[in-house]
C-alpha cells in the first residue's frame, strides 16, 4: 500500500479501542476526551522555529486529490478534520467536531461542530464545509483517492447537515471502525473551492504552483512560503482554535520549516550539525550506533518508536496463468514450497545480518508493533533445514544430478527469479541472505534488483516470479481490505480477483467481511486470528523480521509525542515546542 496512507493506518488502530466504548454510549451524548492539549512533559516556551525535513516536494496542496506524504504533511500542519486519532494513545479525540452521538444501530453518527472556529481568512467553519468535502470525495470528476475509502459495502456514506453546527453521517452497513475513519478526511474550505468543484476542476485546484496566500488554513500553521527544491515555511495561524490546559493559545511554535533534503546521508549530516531538528524517516540500521554515541554525549535525543508494523514482504506470483505453461508449475506455487522456504530461514540470524540486530523475528504480516491485532500464537515455522528438505522431497524435488541444486522428475531445476528494489540496502541484503539460506536446501535464487517503479509495474501486470518489496498497510484489518480481500488492489500475490481463486482465499474473504461488520472487539480479534491462522498455513507472503524504529532529534525540541507512523513527531504540531525558543544554527 501507498506509504502516504500511513496516517490512515494509525487512525485504524485506535478504532478498536473506541468500538466497545461507542457501543456503551449509543444513543446518548458521549464524553470524548478533551481537545485541550495534554499537560506538557516540560513547560513549553512560546515561540521559536523548528526545522524538519522531507524527502520530496508536495505534488499538490489538495489532500482530496493527492495522497503523497508531503501533501499529507501540509494537511496535518494547516488543515483540519472532524475527529483525530491520537497516534500516541490510539484514542479517538474530538477535533473540529467537539462531540457526537451514535444511533442505536451503530450506523449513524451525529456530530456537533466546535463553535467559533474560523478559517485563517476569518470565514467561519460550518457544516457546509463538511458537506462540501464529502461532495468532493464522491465527485467523479475529482477522482479522489478518498472515494473508495469512504465506501462501505460498495456504497457511499450519507451525510446531512440539519444546521450549521450539526452533521449526521450514516454508514450504509455496519462498519466496525466507525467515525474513526474520519481522522483521515481533510476538510475543504467551501468558500475557496466551491467554484472549482462546480467547474469540474477541483482535482487541479490548490496545485503546488498555487501561491501560498491563496491557501487558507484551519490548522495550527499557515503555509507562507514555498521555495521549490528547498523548503516550505509554515507560520503560526493566529486564528487557530486550540488551547492548552492553561488556556494559552496554540501552537507554541512560531514557525515550522520543512527543508527538502532528498538524500538520507545529507539529512544525517545536517542533523548532526544541528541545522535541522529531525527527519521524517526512521534511522537506518547502519546509523543507529553512531546516533547512540551522540545521544550519550547529549548532542541528540535518540527516540525508540518500537517495532515496525510494516514488515517487508516476500511473495510469489500465485496467478494460475503464470505457471500454466511452466514446468515448475507443478511445485513452485504449492504451499509446501513456501513452507519449506519458511523453515529454511533462520529468522534470528536474518534479523542480525539484515538489520544489524535492530529487528525482531516475525512469522506473519501482523507484527508485535501492532499491539491491537498481533497474535502471539500464530503458527510458526521453526528453523529446520531437515523439515524444509522433507517438504521439498514431498514435492518431488531431489538432487538428481549430484550438483548443488534440486530437480523435479523432469529434471527441471528448483530455481526462481526474485525481483527487489534497487538501492534499498535492506531489501538487497534480505535477498542475499535468502539466496544463501535457500542454497543450503538446494533452491537457486536469481536476485534481480530493479528500480522500485519498475518492480511495482511488473508486479501489477503479473510479470514476476517472486518479489521482495516494502509497502505499508493500515493497522486495523477492516481498513486494510485491499490487502486481505481477494478482490483487493494490494492482494499482491494475485491481484483484483473476480472471484476467489482458492478456497482459502474465499475463507479469508468471508472472515474479513464478517470481522469488519462485528462491533464486539474480542469477537473481531477472534475472527482475525482465524484469518492469520489460514494465512500462516498458506503463506502467500513470507515474513522473517521487522526492524525496530528509531528517530534522532536535537535536544532543543521538547514536548515530543512519539508515534510510529509518519509523521512520527509532527502528527501533533501544535504542542511541539523549542526549549527557550529560537532556531537552530543556519
Amino acid at each position, binding site marked *: 500500500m501507498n506509504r502516504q496512507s500511513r496516517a490512515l493506518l494509525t487512525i485504524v488502530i485506535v478504532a478498536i479501542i473506541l468500538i466497545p466504548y461507542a457501543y456503551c454510549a449509543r444513543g446518548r451524548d458521549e464524553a470524548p476526551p478533551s481537545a485541550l492539549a495534554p499537560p506538557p512533559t516540560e513547560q513549553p516556551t512560546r515561540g521559536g522555529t523548528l526545522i524538519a525535513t522531507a524527502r520530496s516536494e508536495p505534488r499538490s496542496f489538495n489532500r482530496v486529490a493527492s495522497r503523497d506524504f508531503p501533501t499529507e504533511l501540509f494537511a496535518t500542519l494547516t488543515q483540519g478534520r472532524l475527529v483525530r486519532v491520537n497516534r500516541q494513545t490510539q484514542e479517538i479525540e474530538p477535533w473540529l467536531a467537539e462531540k457526537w452521538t451514535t444511533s442505536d444501530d451503530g450506523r449513524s453518527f451525529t456530530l456537533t461542530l466546535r463553535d467559533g472556529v474560523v478559517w485563517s481568512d476569518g470565514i467561519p467553519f460550518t457544516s457546509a464545509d463538511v458537506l462540501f468535502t464529502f461532495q468532493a470525495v464522491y465527485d467523479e470528476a475529482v477522482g479522489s483517492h478518498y472515494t473508495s475509502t469512504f465506501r462501505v459495502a460498495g456504497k457511499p456514506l450519507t451525510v446531512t447537515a440539519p444546521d450549521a453546527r450539526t452533521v449526521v453521517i450514516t454508514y450504509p452497513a455496519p462498519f466496525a471502525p466507525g467515525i474513526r475513519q474520519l481522522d483521515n478526511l481533510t476538510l475543504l474550505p467551501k468558500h475557496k473551492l466551491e467554484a472549482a468543484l462546480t467547474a469540474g476542476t477541483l482535482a487541479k485546484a490548490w496545485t503546488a504552483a498555487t501561491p501560498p496566500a491563496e491557501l487558507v488554513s484551519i490548522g495550527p500553521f499557515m503555509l507562507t512560503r514555498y521555495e521549490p527544491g528547498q523548503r516550505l515555511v509554515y507560520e503560526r495561524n493566529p486564528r487557530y482554535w486550540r488551547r492548552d490546559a492553561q488556556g494559552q493559545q496554540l501552537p507554541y511554535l512560531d514557525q515550522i520549516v520543512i*527543508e527538502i533534503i532528498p538524500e538520507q546521508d545529507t539529512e544525517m549530516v545536517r542533523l548532526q550539525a544541528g541545522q535541522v531538528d529531525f527527519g521524517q524517516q526512521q534511522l537506518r540500521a547502519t546509523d543507529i550506533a553512531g546516533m547512540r554515541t551522540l545521544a550519550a554525549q547529549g548532542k541528540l535525543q535518540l527516540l525508540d518508536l518500537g517495532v515496525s508494523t510494516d514488515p517487508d514482504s516476500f511473495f510469489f506470483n500465485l496467478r494460475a496463468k503464470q505457471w500454466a505453461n511452466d514446468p515448475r508449475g507443478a511445485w513452485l506455487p504449492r504451499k509446501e514450497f513456501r513452507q519449506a522456504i519458511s523453515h529454511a530461514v533462520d529468522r534470528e540470524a536474518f534479523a542480525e545480518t539484515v538489520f544489524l540486530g535492530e529487528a525482531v523475528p516475525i512469522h506473519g504480516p501482523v507484527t508485535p508493533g501492532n499491539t491491537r491485532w498481533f497474535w502471539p500464537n500464530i503458527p510458526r515455522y521453526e528453523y529446520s533445514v531437515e523439515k524444509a528438505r522433507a517438504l521439498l522431497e514431498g514435492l518431488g524435488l531431489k538432487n538428481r544430478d549430484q550438483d548443488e541444486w534440486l530437480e523435479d522428475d523432469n529434471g527441471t531445476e528448483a530455481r526462481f527469479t526474485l525481483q527487489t528494489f534497487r538501492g534499498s540496502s535492506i531489501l538487497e541484503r534480505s535477498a542475499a541472505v535468502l539466496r544463501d539460506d535457500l542454497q543450503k536446501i538446494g533452491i537457486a535464487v536469481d536476485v534481480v534488483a530493479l528500480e522500485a517503479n519498475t518492480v511495482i509495474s511488473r508486479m501489477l501486470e503479473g510479470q514476476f516470479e517472486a518479489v521482495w518489496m516494502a509497502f505499508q498497510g493500515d493497522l486495523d484489518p477492516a481498513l486494510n481490505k485491499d490487502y486481505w480481500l481477494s478482490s483487493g488492489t494490494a492482494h499482491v500475490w494475485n491481484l483484483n480477483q473476480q472471484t476467489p481463486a482458492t478456497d482459502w482465499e474465499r475463507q479469508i474473504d468471508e472472515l474479513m467481511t464478517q470481522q469488519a461488520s462485528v462491533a464486539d472487539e474480542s469477537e473481531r480479534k477472534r475472527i482475525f486470528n482465524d484469518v492469520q491462522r489460514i494465512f500462516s498455513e498458506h503463506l502467500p507472503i513470507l515474513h522473517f523480521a521487522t526492524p525496530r524504529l528509531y528517530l534522532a532529534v536535537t535536544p532543543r525540541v521538547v514536548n515530543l509525542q512519539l508515534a510510529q507512523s509518519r509523521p512520527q513527531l509532527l502528527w501533533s504540531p501544535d504542542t511541539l515546542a523549542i526549549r527557550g525558543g529560537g532556531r537552530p544554527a543556519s
Partner: protein
Amino acid sequence: MSIGRYLLRRALVALLLVFVVSSGTLLLTRLAPGDSATDAGLASDPAQRARLRGELGLDRPLGAQYLDWLAGALRFDLGWSVVFSRPVADLLSERALNTAVLASVALVGATAVGVPLGLYTGAHASGFGPGLVRTLSVVILSVPPLLGSLFFMLFAARTGWLPVGGMTSSVLADSGWMTWAIDLARHIPLPALALALPLAATLEQLQSQAIRESLREPFVRAAQARGLTFSQALRHHAWRVSLAPVLGLYGLMIGSLFSGSFAVEVVTGWPGLGRLMFDALRARDLYLVTGCAAAGACFIALGTLTADVMLVAADPRRRMGDLR
C-alpha cells in the same frame, strides 16, 4: 567559411542534437516499464490508475503522444510535470538558473586552479612541487563526486564554517537582496568545490600533458634558439598551442556542468537541473525527464560551440573554416 555561416551551421546541428536527444529520451522513458501512474501503485484501484493514465495521456498510442509533444515543443510548450504540478518549461528555467550560478563558480574555479597548475607541472618534469600536484590530481580524480560531496558536507558540519547544504537559509529569506546574496555566497563553496575539484584535476592533467608535448614542438625549440627564455617560449608559444586539447574538453565540461550534476546537487541539496532530473526519473515524470534531457543537450551544444570559438581565439593558426 564566414563566421555567420559557421554559427548558423552549428545552430542547426545543435537543434538536431536537441531534437534527437529529447525524442530519444521521451520514447525510451515511455517504453520502459512503469509510468507516473505506477507511483499510485497498490494504493489505487485499476480504474483510478486507468483514469490517471488517461489524464496524463499515457493510454494513447506512442506515436500520437510523441507527435503531440513535438507539436507542443515547437511552441515552447514542453508539457506538464506530474511531480511538481507545473509546466515543465517553468521548472526548467527556474532550475537552470540555479545550476548556472553553481556551474559558473565551479567552472571559473576549476579553470583558475587547473590550467595554471597544469602549466606548472607540464613545464617542470621533476621536483617535489610538481610531484605533489600530480599526486593530488590523481587522488582527487579517483574520488567519485558523491564521496567528494559527502566529504565536504562532513567538513562543513564539523567545522561549522559553512552551511551544510542547500542554496539559501530559511532564516534570511525575508531579508534584503544584499543579505540574500551574502547568504548565497556562503552556500556556494561547498557544492562548487565538489564540482570544481575533479574538473580542476582533469584540466591540470590535460594541460600538463599538452604543454609537455608542445614544448617538444620544433617552433618552440626554434623560438628558444632565437633567444627567448624558457618562460617566454612557454607563455607566448607553447601554451597557446597546448590549449587545443584542453578547449576540446572544455566544451563538454561546460555542457555537463550546466546540465547539472545528479550526485552533487542531490547530496548538497542544491535545487538545480541535476536534482530536477533525479526527481523526474524517480517518479517517471515523462515530460519532465524529456525536458531535462533537452536542456542538457542544449548546454552540451552551447558548450562545444563556446569551446570552438575560444579555440579560434587562442590559436591563430585556426580559422572558423577549419572547424568541422
